[in-house]
Structures are given as structure tokens and as C-alpha cells.
């Protein structure tokens, strides 16, 4: 029997993986992908709660999150492309010009 807790644990694991990816990986595209994983972990939580409570609200919010995520991916990739043209690199550590 799959209970709400199973979903939540899976979601927490996915979120932790995403977070670790953002911190550990040195490639901007991978970081973007990790952010998508984090978003989908949250989506999973929403849907799980929605089902457990017998309400459609969770699913509706997930649609919103997916829309925003799509837009975010588009803008994010565009920024990554222009950054790459600028520095010939995808390493986030090479983009530190905006400091004190």
C-alpha cells in the first residue's frame, strides 16, 4: 500500500538531489536541470496532498508551476546561451563580475 508518506519521502529525496545538483555541479545547464528536479519534487508533493485530501487544488497549482517552469527554462536557457557567447564557458564560477 502506497501512503502519503511514501510520496513525501520520494519528493524529499528528489528535492535533496536537485539541491545537491545546484551546489555540486559546475555546468550551468546541469544546474538548470537540477532546478527542474526541485520544482518537480514540489509538484509531486502538491499532487500527493491533493489526492490525500480529495481535492483538485493541488493539481491546479501544479499546472501553474509547470507553466512557470517552462517559461523559466526558456528564459534561463536564453541567458545561458548569451553567457556562453560572452565567456566561452559554462562554469558558474567564471561569472563573478557583479561583485562589490
Amino acid at each position: 500500500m502506497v501512503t502519503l508518506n511514501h510520496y513525501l519521502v520520494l519528493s524529499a529525496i528528489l528535492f535533496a538531489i536537485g539541491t545537491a545538483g545546484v551546489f555540486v555541479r559546475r555546468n550551468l545547464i546541469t544546474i538548470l536541470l537540477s532546478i527542474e528536479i526541485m520544482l518537480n519534487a514540489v509538484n509531486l508533493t502538491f499532487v500527493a496532498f491533493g489526492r490525500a485530501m480529495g481535492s483538485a487544488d493541488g493539481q491546479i497549482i501544479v499546472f501553474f508551476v509547470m507553466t512557470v517552469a517552462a517559461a523559466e527554462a526558456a528564459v534561463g536557457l536564453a541567458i545561458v546561451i548569451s553567457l556562453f557567447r560572452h565567456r566561452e564557458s559554462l562554469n558558474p564560477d567564471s561569472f563573478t563580475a557583479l561583485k562589490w
Partner: protein
Amino acid sequence: MLLLIALLPFVGFLVNVGFGRRMSKAVSGGVACGAIIASFLVSSVAVWRLVAQAPEERVFTQQVFSWIASGDLNVGFTLRLDPLSAVMILVVTGIGSLIHIYSTAYMDQERDSEYARYFSYLNLFAAFMLVLVLGANFVVMFVGWEGVGLCSYLLIGFWYEKKSASDAGKKAFIVNRIGDFGFILGIFLAFVRFGTLDFQEIARAVSGIAPESAFGVLSLMTLLLFVGATGKSAQIPLFVWLPDAMEGPTPVSALIHAATMVTAGVYMIGRNAALFSHAPETLTIVAIVGAATALMAGTIGLVQTDIKRVLAYSTVSQLGYMFLAMGVGAFAAGIFHLYTHAFFKALLFLGSGAVIHALGGEQDLRRMGGLRRELPMTYWTFVVGALAIAGVPGLAGFFSKDEILFRTFAGGHVVLWTIGLLTSLLTAIYMFRIVFLTFYGERREASTEHPVHLHDAPRPMAWALVALAIGSVLAGYVGVPAILGGGDRLAHFLEPSFHIEMAHEGGAGSTELALMILSSAIAIAGIGIASYFFLRNTRAAQAMADRFAGVYRVLSNKYYVDEIYDAAIVQPIRIVSEQGLWKIVDARVIDGLVNGAGRLVEVSSATLRRVQTGSVRAYAASLFFGVVAILGYYLWR
């Protein structure tokens, strides 16, 4: 209708200030004169209608709009025409019109834009002065009061490129500010005491209480109001600005600094006659200050050499007379003198203006002389004015001055009466000193570089001079005392405005007649003395000055009042401001606070900026750990 009286000159001001640069002299002068003459005509109609009413119903009130309504304070922009303001509006618009006409010729050497600027100020002045005299409560009066002060400042400093003129303007403004401070405190006190600022309601409220026997709240209130009057009307101790105000164009001196604005203080006391008569302590002070000012200014006037300055001190002296009248409770006599003085002093100023105009700007009496033949029109009108102010029987000044002296004597103020009599002797002497030095004797050379083309007054100036000369002769006949077969009609006309019972001494006829003969004799004696010293035996004047060199020096330095004020007030303020306020309070404390605040931000920012590393992952880490910390706090709380 009442609003129209004040509004017409204001419209003239707006036209001249808005389009003056693009208008020719004829148009801008015509607009200004048209506005004030129209205002005069409307005033005449209004006064005509007022006179047609029964004596006790002679009040027209017009509330233009409700201005301030806040709790207990309810002030309307209300204008009121009663006998007192009727006299004032006729003086302001009537004499104002003549002076506007005179100015069209006097100022014709100015550039077009300056000419329009001059007339715009003159119209603005008339508008504010009319608001002052028509205002039905203290607040509206105060608007006019400050407005005329502003116009006075602008017109004294009209030739602002001349340092002395702009300094004189500032001096007038600042000295008046001191008086106005007292005035506004008096207004506050009146509101606290009576809960209203309307003159009629205050008079009604005060009539229910007994006059103060000792110095109390009414005395304090009236004394504060009187401080305002000393500033505006150039009395001791605030008279120092008026002689300097002669830096302005001469028609301005005639209109503002002789006929109208400087009489505002007298008018204000007359307007609050009921209030002042309930504060006998203040009235005594008013009378003493008036008499002292009259004498002091009269003595200074004897030795001044600038023709306009002599006239300025004469004005101060005559204003002292008016305050003396107010102080002894002869309110009608004071207003009567205000009204006759407006004619002959405006005439004398305009006459001196014609002399100055003819001599190309020369104002020094010692460089004039023998102008009788070249300037016959100016000469004759000036002599009429001088006779009127000296108090020669039959002319305007005789009736009003005698009325004041008689009331002073009848009130038992023998010392003040003696001072008044002495001042009238001085008046005759210094006025005829001007006449003899200017128009008689040998022609002395003028100092101005450009050759002087002597000419009598141009036509508009001559009209104004003749009209005022006629006024100076006839103006007194509205107030001929009963003893000479007159009805003292002006006093009866004014009586309802004062809201108090006026004393009509009927039995003292022989005393009044004796005093009249005495003061006439004194006036004639004064003229005789002047003719001895300045016409027949000119060396005697010099010998006299040498013999009493000390007195002469004190008088020609105006009792060193300016120097005393400079040492006692101006310099200490300067030193405290410079050494204390500037170098310590401003440079150290205030600048220190401002710079310190800046320094604090600078230092803390220098530390905090290290956080901004530019590394995206560092930001993400701080975000993450921040969220973990907050969530952790709520979980384990």
C-alpha cells in the same frame, strides 16, 4: 461692490505684471491710472450710498467667502464699509489717483519695462491698502497690512541697482517685521480673550466690561497692537526706517510714506477705539510715544539737508501728532489730522519731486535756491502745502492740528500739550526753511554732472499739484469746530465707527478760541523765525549752528539712533550669529550631524559590501542555509 474697490487696482497690477514688458508707457500708465481712478469712482458711489443711510445704520458688510473655519476660529474674507473706512478709501483712491497721474510724468525717463513694473507695484499697493482699510476682521486687515509692507519694500528698493536703495528697502522690511511680530501677538491675544477677530464683535464684547484700572490683559493686548502700529507708522522706537525709505521714487514717498501706508497704525487704533479706550494704561503710553516722536522728529527735521529727509521727519512728526490724539482719546481728531495730512504732505512730497525732477536728481537743500521764478507752479503749490502743515488759519492743517491740541489740553495733559505746541513751532520753522532755501535767495550750483535744464512741472505733475493744493486748502472745512460756526461734521460722521461715546465739550468755548489764537500765533512766529534765519540773515543760521555745535551735531546725526541700534542690536546679533551660530552651531553641530550620518553609512557599507561576492553559488548557498535556519527555528521552537 466693496470687493470691486480693492479688485480694480489688483486687476491693473495683473495686467501690468503680465504684459508690461510688451506695452508702451502710455498703455501701462493708462491701465494703472484707469484702474485706480475706476476704484475711486466705485468708492465714491459706495460712500455716497453709505451717507444716504441713517447715521446709526451706516455699515455695509460683504462676506466674499468663508476663509478659515476651524473649530472656534471662524474667519471670513469679509469687507466692511463704515464711516471710518469710508474716509480711508476716499483718501487712498483719491490721493492715490492723483499720485498715479503725477507718476506718469515723473517716471517717464525709465525704460518701458521698468515703467510697467513701477505701475504694477503702485497698483498692487493700492489693492492691499484697500484690503487693509476695508477688512472687517484682524486677519483680513493683517493680509493688507503685510501686503502694503511688501509693496513698500519693493518700491523703496525700486532702483535696486543702487546699494543704498536696496539696503533701505531691507531696513524698512526688517524693522516692520519687529512691529508685525507684536501686532500678530496682539491678534492672538484678542482671539484668546474674545473668541472672535471681527472688529464689530470685539467692540461689542468690550463694551460690556469696565475699563481696566491697572495693567491687565486688555492693556497688554492693546500694547502689542500698538507695537505693530509703531513699526508701520514709524514711531519711537521703530521710526528709523522711514527717513531711509526716501531712497524710493518721490511719488512713492508721497503715496506710501506720507499719505497712506504709514497712517495704517493710526487707522488701526481708530478701528479699535473701543478696545483701546478700555485700556487707559496703553492710551497713556500711546500719547507719550506720539508726543515724544513728534518733538524728536521735529528737531531732527530742523537741520537735515536732504529735502526729502526733512519731509520724512516731518511725516514722522505729524504721525506723532496723530498718535497723541489717539492717546488722549480724541480718535476723531486723529483721523481728521490723518485725512488733512494726506493732502498737504502728498502735496509737499510731489512738490519736492517736481523740484528734484527739474534739477535732474538734486536733493540737497544747500544746492538749491532761487527757483521761485523758474518753477512758479511748483513754488505756489508748495507754499500752500507749507502753510497748511504749519497750521496757518484757514487751511487744512490748522483745523486738524488745533483739534488735537485742544483735545489734549482739555484732557488735562498740559505737558503733552506744551510738547505739541513746541512741535508746531518747529513744524513751521523747518517747512519754511525748505521754502526759503529752495525757492528764495541766490541760485546755487547743482552737483549733477549733466547740465540741468530747468523746467516747471510737466502737465500731469502740475494737475496733481494743483488738485492737492486745492485739497490742502479746503480739506479742513469738513471738520470746522463748533466754536467757529462749523458743525465738526467729520467727527459726527466718524462717531459710529468708534463704538464709544465721544465727549463733546460745549462749554469750553473761550478756552478753545484762546488756544486757537495761541497756536496760530506760534505758526506765524515759526514762519517769521525761519525767514530771519534762512532768508534775511543767512549767516545767523550758521552762527547758531557753530554756537551750539554739540546740539547741532546730535541733531544732524539724528540723535545717533541708528548708531545706537547698530551697537546695541545689530552688532551683537552679528557677532552671535557669526561666532556662535555659524562657526559652532552650523559648522560643527549641524554639519557634524549630517557628515556623521554619511560617515556612518560609509563605514558600515565598506564592511557589508564584502558579502557581495559575485559568485552565484555563494548566493544560492546563503539562500539555502537561510531557509534551513528559518525552518529549523520553527520546527524546534
